[in-house]
């Protein structure tokens, strides 16, 4: 390879790196000096990135159509990459879990505009499941028992809320053996298959077809259930112009009113979209604070 070619290659690499750094550090849509031409959407890795893209692509197309903006979807391969986008405020619209929303709101000013409706419910309760034949009748009976939570320690319905319930029942970590399943459904299977004494997850588990198709739900019962709280929020950057925010909200709410919209929602794993505000997640903040000992 001659020196001229080497020099040209080096120039191209430098130019590419500069461009990449510009992209990574570019200001979001709604910065004061930026033109409103695109909407960046981030979705937390509740599911695999590929599945997330598949589920939400129709919704993104719908928003692009309604807003007249180019909509780009980012679903991190893991939570770290997702959170990096949140930290850099690269996402104009973000789908969080409740804990992460509150963290993003506090740190970066994201504002909730709506929330998922799943199982045709605006709210969900955290629940603790046991086998009916286990002899466990109260939360206090779980002392010294093994509880499988349906997610990591950031899972609202499968860990934080059940943990809150246990705390309220006087059971602190160490009073029971905690184990973690990768999904709430797996957590519910654990007591069913005698792999734990209890499971922690949302209160809709026993009605899920994927549950009922695999086990006999009649063998389980909900030992305790929390108060209902809003489901997973959709939040926008704090500096999103009001008209855009309004148009975005209306576009989401309009999904509830048309067959096409319901189909888009269904593909995104939702049964509806609820209007919500940051206030609706104060209950969650209280629970989180209690669990985290603040």
């Amino acid at each position: 390879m001659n020196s001229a070619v080497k020099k040209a290659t080096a120039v191209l690499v430098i130019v590419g790196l500069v461009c990449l750094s510009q992209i990574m550090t570019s200001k979001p849509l709604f910065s004061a000096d930026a033109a409103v031409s695109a909407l960046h959407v981030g979705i937390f890795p509740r599911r695999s990135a590929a599945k997330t893209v598949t589920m939400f692509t129709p919704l993104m197309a719908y928003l692009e159509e309604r807003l007249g903006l180019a909509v780009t979807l980012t679903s991190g391969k893991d939570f770290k990459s997702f959170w990096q986008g949140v930290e850099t405020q690269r996402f104009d619209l973000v789908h969080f879990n409740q804990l992460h929303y509150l963290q993003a709101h506090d740190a970066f000013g994201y504002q909730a505009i709506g929330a998922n409706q799943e199982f045709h419910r605006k709210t969900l309760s955290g629940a603790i499941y046991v086998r009916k034949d286990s002899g466990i009748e109260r939360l206090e009976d779980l002392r010294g028992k093994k509880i499988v939570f349906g997610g990591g320690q950031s899972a609202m319905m499968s860990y934080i809320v059940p943990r809150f319930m246990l705390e309220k029942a006087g059971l602190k970590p160490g009073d029971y053996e905690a184990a973690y399943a990768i999904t709430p459904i797996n957590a519910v299977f654990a007591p069913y298959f005698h792999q734990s004494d209890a499971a922690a997850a949302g209160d809709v588990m026993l009605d899920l077809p994927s549950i009922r198709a695999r086990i006999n739900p009649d063998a389980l019962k909900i030992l305790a259930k929390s108060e209902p709280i809003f489901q997973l929020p959709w939040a926008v950057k704090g500096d999103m112009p009001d008209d855009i925010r309004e148009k975005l909200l209306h576009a989401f709410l309009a999904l509830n009113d048309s067959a096409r919209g319901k189909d888009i929602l269904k593909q995104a794993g939702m049964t509806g979209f609820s209007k919500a505000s940051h206030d609706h997640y104060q209950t969650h903040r209280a629970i989180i604070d209690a669990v985290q000992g603040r």
Partner: protein
Amino acid sequence: MKAPALGLRTKFILIVLAILAMAIGASSLYLAAHQKDLGTQKLEAKTQALGRFAALIAPQAILSYDFLALDTYVREIVSQEDFVLAVFFDHAGNALTERLSLPQDLSLSFTEKPEAALQRLQANPRFMRWDFPMQHDGRDLGQLSLLLDMSHLDRESQALLWQQFRVYGFVSLMLAFALILSFQVQILKPIQSLVAAVQRVAKGDFQTSVHVKGQDEMSRLALGFNMMMQEIATHQAKLKVLSSAVEHSPAPILITNIQGEIDYVNPKFEDVTGYRYDEIVGQKHAVLRSNYTKDDRYDQLWQAVTSGKEWQGELLHRRKNGELFWARVWIAPVFRDDGTMAHLVAIKEDITEHKEKREAMEIMLDEYARSNAALERFAYVTSHDLQEPVRSILSFSQLLDRRYRENLAPEAKDYLDYITQGAHRISDLVQALLDYGHIASSTKPFAPVSVKDIGMAAQAALHKAILDTKADICWEGDEIIQGDKDQLILLFQNILRNALTFVVPEVTPKIRITLKKDLPFIQIAIQDNGIGIEPLYQERIFEIFQRLHNQEVFPGKGIGLAVCKRIVERHGGKIWVEKAAGQGTVFIFTLPAGLNR
């Protein structure tokens, strides 16, 4: 109930179909069993691979409580053909999945736990259970249990069996059709041709033949048949000749088996005996017996023929109408190729008439002999009795001549001479007759004697005549004969005398005597160079008192050669005369040869 006769083609078709059915059945069953074994092996290998892999990846899911992953594994496993149940168990035996894929007839609900279902179904031979242990860092995490429905292999095996049956059946039918067609063309058709030919032969057509095509075994068989038919036709022609000869034989012929039961008689037999063929065949030969023949004779007959010898003789038989008849019978045994006796063949000649004629002839001959003897006796007696009167006549005529000759007139003297000469001649004839008769009545036994000795004795008796005629007598050879020496000397004497008597004037007699063996006789020829004998008289000269010449020319009594003939015949020989080459006569006679001394 008699089974219907099956044709060769039907039998062949049945045999071919049976063989093919057995072959198809056996091969199909073998292939099906082999296929099932292969299927079982493949299924086992697949189960091993699947189970081990699932048991290898399952611990991670178990440790992370990823029951959905376990469920996915189970789902993937039971989605495989023949896998009806897959269950992950923890180390305590608790099931970690409940997904089941049981056939319709094995309904299972969640009320029946997987372990219970496994226990229940693994006892069924239709199913097979496999267990794969699961470990993580040496820790026992339980096992994966799989239940396989082996009936699928049976169904596949049955399906394959039926498929093979159909394919092989079709191929076999085509093969059977080809075989049958080939059989029809290559074998059955030639056989049918042979059968038709044999049927024609059975109906008597021995000229039939079959078409020969190619060089194969059937063609050689057909060729052999044709050659056999040619042979049969040749034999048939011979048999026809023989049969015709027997059928038309002028002699009655019958054939019996060795038990004496009649198997065959010819038409002449029917004519002679009066028995028809169909009424005598099967009867014993004894039906012909007259009951006048002694059993000993039949025993002798039977013993001879049963020992393999021929027998011939005369038997008195009885015809069907009871009439008796004489038959000259020849009986001979007929042997099989192996030497055992099969039949007896008898040829019978009706000799009743012949026998009657012979008996009449014998009676006549006896009568003639008696008459001849009486005549000879008469002649002898007469000759003997005549001797005395002749002697008286001669004595008195001589006495008359001696005493009264002078007193007789010349004519009377002549008359007396005539009487004396006549008396002498009568006396000579009477003596000759006595000698002639004495030859036949002689009882002197025969003895060996040299021909030449006899001839010399005869020459001695004729010594004077030989000297007078200066005859040249030549003997060639000598033999011993058996006979009456005196009569034989007389025989030679008479013939030599004739040779010395009937000579050509002025010619010295030459007599040549030759001998030749003609056993059991010695033939003797005496040749002279005399006047000879005309052929017309060559028989007549041997009759008594027959003379060919005037007494005045060649004196004699006319009895010498008759005596010769009688002597030769008494010795059992013959005598005849031939004209000698050139001039003269040859007397030839035979006498019985005797032992050399």
